[in-house]
Every structure is written in structure tokens, then in C-alpha cells.
């Protein structure tokens, strides 16, 4: 049977129905199967945590939000600046890009204790970890984006005797924006991961710390609530990026 495209109503309704079916199955099937609540709590139990411990969740959301956001801004800004430097100085790029590449192969989990050793136990190491995790994909994408103008486009600017900075602002940068935004979307999720990983290793505040404490204390409804909140944070960051992208790129 040939499948045609779905109607607009269906393409909105089906994901909602899909999610609802999974939540309902989770709510009613797991207790029936005898899965204990301290392993997998029901959706309503998790929702109840949001009502009961709202202040606690909010208190732990705040540091994670700040760390992820700061890491996101710092990591991506550093990557963009370094990409600009690399595309304008091929000698520097040849000398240092392989080292950056090597650096990226170190798993962030292995790197985190070192970062905490250097920066101590405050918010700084978490911001650094979130920044490091955002940095590399943006650097690679930004270099490719800045180099993505065609030969003809460069010749057009050359015929007009454009300066290097005019070529940068009027050609290279606008050409790079779509690729920059696609890596910012990815970074919006990884920045939150970085902040939470940092909090696992050494912190008593934040969603990461809450996740660790809740799992040690078998407070699995609280654990799940913290996970839902982390994912909500990623989604909010992602939506913010998409919003800015839609306003910036109109073609």
C-alpha cells in the first residue's frame, strides 16, 4: 500500500496520542506487572513531586541553568572566535587544529576531575565543562561555514575590490550562520549535559547533585522528576536557539 502524506491535523494529533499511549501504559501496566515504585515510579507519582517539592526543584534548577547557559555562551563564543582566527591564518590552523582535534578525543568524563582539580568546587568547573563540551562541534562547523562561500562568490567580491573585513562581514559570516545555528542547536542539549556531569562529580547543588542524592536515597520519584526537569531545561534552551535562528535566517 502506498502511503500518502498525513493531514495537518493528524500530524499534530499523532505525536500527542503516541506520547499519551506510552504514559498510560507506564501508569497502569508497570504496577500490574509488579515493578516496584522505588525502581520505576508512575507518571502521576513524578508529577506529585513537582507539586510537593517545587521549591527544592527550583532551587536546584537555578545553578544548573546558570552553569549551562554560561558554558553555552562561553564555549560557543570561544569556538566562533577561534574559527575566525583559523580561517584568516592558515599557518595557525595547520599548527593548532590537530591539537584541538586530539583534545576532543578525550572523553569529557575523564577530563572533568582534572577541571574540578583546577577550578575547585564552585560553579566555575561546571561552567568550564559545559563550555568544553559545546566548543568543539561549533569550532568545526564554524570553520566549515566560514569557508563555504563559493569560488564565484569570492571572485564577485574580488571584482568589487572588497577588503578582507568586508568579505568577512558581507560574505563569510552570513554564509556561516546556518551551520553555526545547527551546531548551536546541538550545543543547547550538550551544555546541560556538561553542567549535570560537573555536578555529579563534586557538588551539593544543582540538578546533577539532586540526581545523585535521590538515587543514593532510593527517592526514585524525585530522581525521575530531576531528569524530567533537566530535559525540560534542554528543550527550553533548544527552543530559544530556534527562535533566534528564525529571526536571523529568513531565506
Amino acid at each position, binding site marked *: 500500500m502506498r502511503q500518502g502524506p498525513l493531514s495537518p491535523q493528524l500530524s499534530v494529533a499523532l505525536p500527542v496520542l503516541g506520547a499519551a499511549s506510552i504514559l498510560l501504559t507506564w501508569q497502569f501496566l508497570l504496577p500490574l506487572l509488579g515493578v516496584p515504585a522505588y525502581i520505576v515510579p508512575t507518571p502521576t507519582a513524578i508529577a506529585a513531586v513537582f507539586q510537593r517539592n517545587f521549591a527544592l526543584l527550583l532551587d536546584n534548577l537555578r545553578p544548573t541553568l546558570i552553569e549551562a547557559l554560561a558554558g553555552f555562551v562561553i564555549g560557543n563564543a570561544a569556538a566562533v572566535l577561534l574559527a575566525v582566527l583559523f580561517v584568516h591564518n592558515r599557518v595557525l590552523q595547520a599548527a593548532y587544529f590537530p591539537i584541538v582535534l586530539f583534545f576532543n578525543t578525550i572523553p569529557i568524563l575523564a577530563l572533568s576531575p582534572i577541571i574540578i582539580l583546577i577550578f575547585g568546587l564552585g560553579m566555575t568547573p561546571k561552567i568550564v565543562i559545559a563550555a568544553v563540551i559545546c566548543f568543539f562541534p561549533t569550532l568545526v562547523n564554524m570553520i566549515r561555514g566560514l569557508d563555504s562561500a*563559493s569560488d*564565484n*562568490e569570492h*571572485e*564577485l*567580491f*574580488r*571584482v*568589487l*575590490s*572588497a*577588503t578582507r573585513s*568586508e*568579505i568577512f562581514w*558581507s*560574505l563569510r559570516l*552570513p554564509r556561516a*550562520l546556518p551551520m553555526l545555528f545547527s551546531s548551536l542547536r546541538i550545543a543547547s542539549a550538550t551544555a546541560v549535559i556538561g553542567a549535570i556531569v560537573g555536578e555529579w562529580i563534586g557538588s551539593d547543588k544543582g540538578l546533577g547533585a539532586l540526581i545523585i542524592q535521590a538515587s543514593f536515597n532510593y527517592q526514585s520519584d524525585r530522581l525521575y522528576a530531576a531528569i524530567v526537569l533537566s530535559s525540560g531545561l534542554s528543550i527550553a534552551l533548544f527552543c530559544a536557539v530556534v527562535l533566534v535562528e528564525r529571526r536571523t*535566517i*529568513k*531565506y
Partner: protein
Amino acid sequence: MTNAIEASRLDVGYGGRQVAVKVLSGLDLTVKTGSFLSILGPSGCGKSTLLRVVADLLDPLGGTISVLGDTPHAVRSRRDVGFVFQDSTLLPWRTVRDNVRLPLGVGQGSLTRKIEDRSEELLDLMGLGGFGGRLPHQLSGGQRQRVAIARALLGQPKLLLMDEPFGALDEITRDRLNDELLNLWRRTGTTILFVTHSIAEAAYLGERVIVLAANPGRLVKDLDMRPLKQDGNRCTREDPAIVAAMAELRTALERAS
């Protein structure tokens, strides 16, 4: 009046003087100011390369070339040369109007004369009045190429270089744009160098048609079309004299390939 282009024993290649792949070899060419020259040739004959040398996008390996009585570099710095590429090379994030205005925004540092914003007038001239606020992707291929021509004309260049500008268009659109280009040329008196793959297009447009051969690129045919046409470079595509000239060009092109 000086010639628009005087090239003598021109060698052009890639890869530096030592390991050069020669694209053009010992080319002698003189183009009169205000004339319309069509350049025909098989792929790899160096017809695009010739335009790039004239536009100062590429340095020759040997020989001499003067453009409008000066060096290509001086002519480019003065913005006396306009270039139209095969793909329109419009910046997709700029509106049609802002694409035409691009020459106002960049490269002003090296300019001594003032370029006026004639974008509206040029868009009208190219039949694109009312399209100024659109984005390039909202236009047809023919319209995009019209915008590219308007952009090239904004600086009122004395020399217009066109590298297969209508090569990607359908035949009806191409014929229409050919007529518009001829009208433009009659009105402005700009010297035009027009590179094309199409024998019919070359013969219809050019006051003179040259054929280049490949490996290495050299001049193999130089045909004056003016005796075959009426005043103002006018002719019909079906004129027996034009058709005969096309056959002659075809023979030269086949030998060159």
C-alpha cells in the same frame, strides 16, 4: 580612441611559472572600445580564464595585456569592469534590491569616483520593478540573472565581462535576455566580452566572434559579423547570412575540439 583590450603573446596558466599547466598560449587579441565580442570554444579552451585575466582575478604568466589603456588591476580598482557569472551568484540572505546595491557596500575604499544608487532605475530597466523586496529564491532563473546584470551595471562599468551568463536558462528565456542585452549595449555603449557555448547565441549577439581551441588555448577563428548585420548589430536568427556564419563557426569549433 584606445582599444578596450590589447593582449599580446599572452600566456596564462595555473601552478606557477615552473610547473604551469598552460590554459592560454601566446594569445594576441585586440578588442575595440564599445564593441560586442562573443567568445566561443570547447571546455578547457581558456575562454573563462581570459575573462578572469581581464578582470584581474588571475595574473598572466607571460605576455602583456592592457585594459582600457591601463593595467587590469587599475581598471578593477576603479570599478570600470563588471562581471556576470554563469550562476547568478546572488547572496541568498539579501533582498533583490540589496543584492543590486552590493557594489555600494563593499570596496569603496579604493574608489575615487562616487557611485550613485541607481538600483531602482536598473531594476526597472531589467523589468524587475516591484521585485526589489523579494529574496533571490523567490525568483526564476532568468529573473535572477537579470538581477546579476543589474548589479554588474550599478557601477557604470566601461567593460562588461559575461561568463556564460545564460547557459543555465531555457531557450525562450535565453532568447529574450539576448535581445534585452543587445538593447542595453546599444543604450550604454559598454564594451561587452561574452563567453558562451552556444554558436547561435554567439553569432546573434556578437559584432565579432572568436573561436578558441583547447590544449593549450589559442585563437583559431576570428569572424567579423558586422558585414552580415544591419546598423546597430541588428539581425534575425533566421537570416541566411547568419545561418551561414553559424555553419562556419561550427566547422571551426569542431576542428578546435
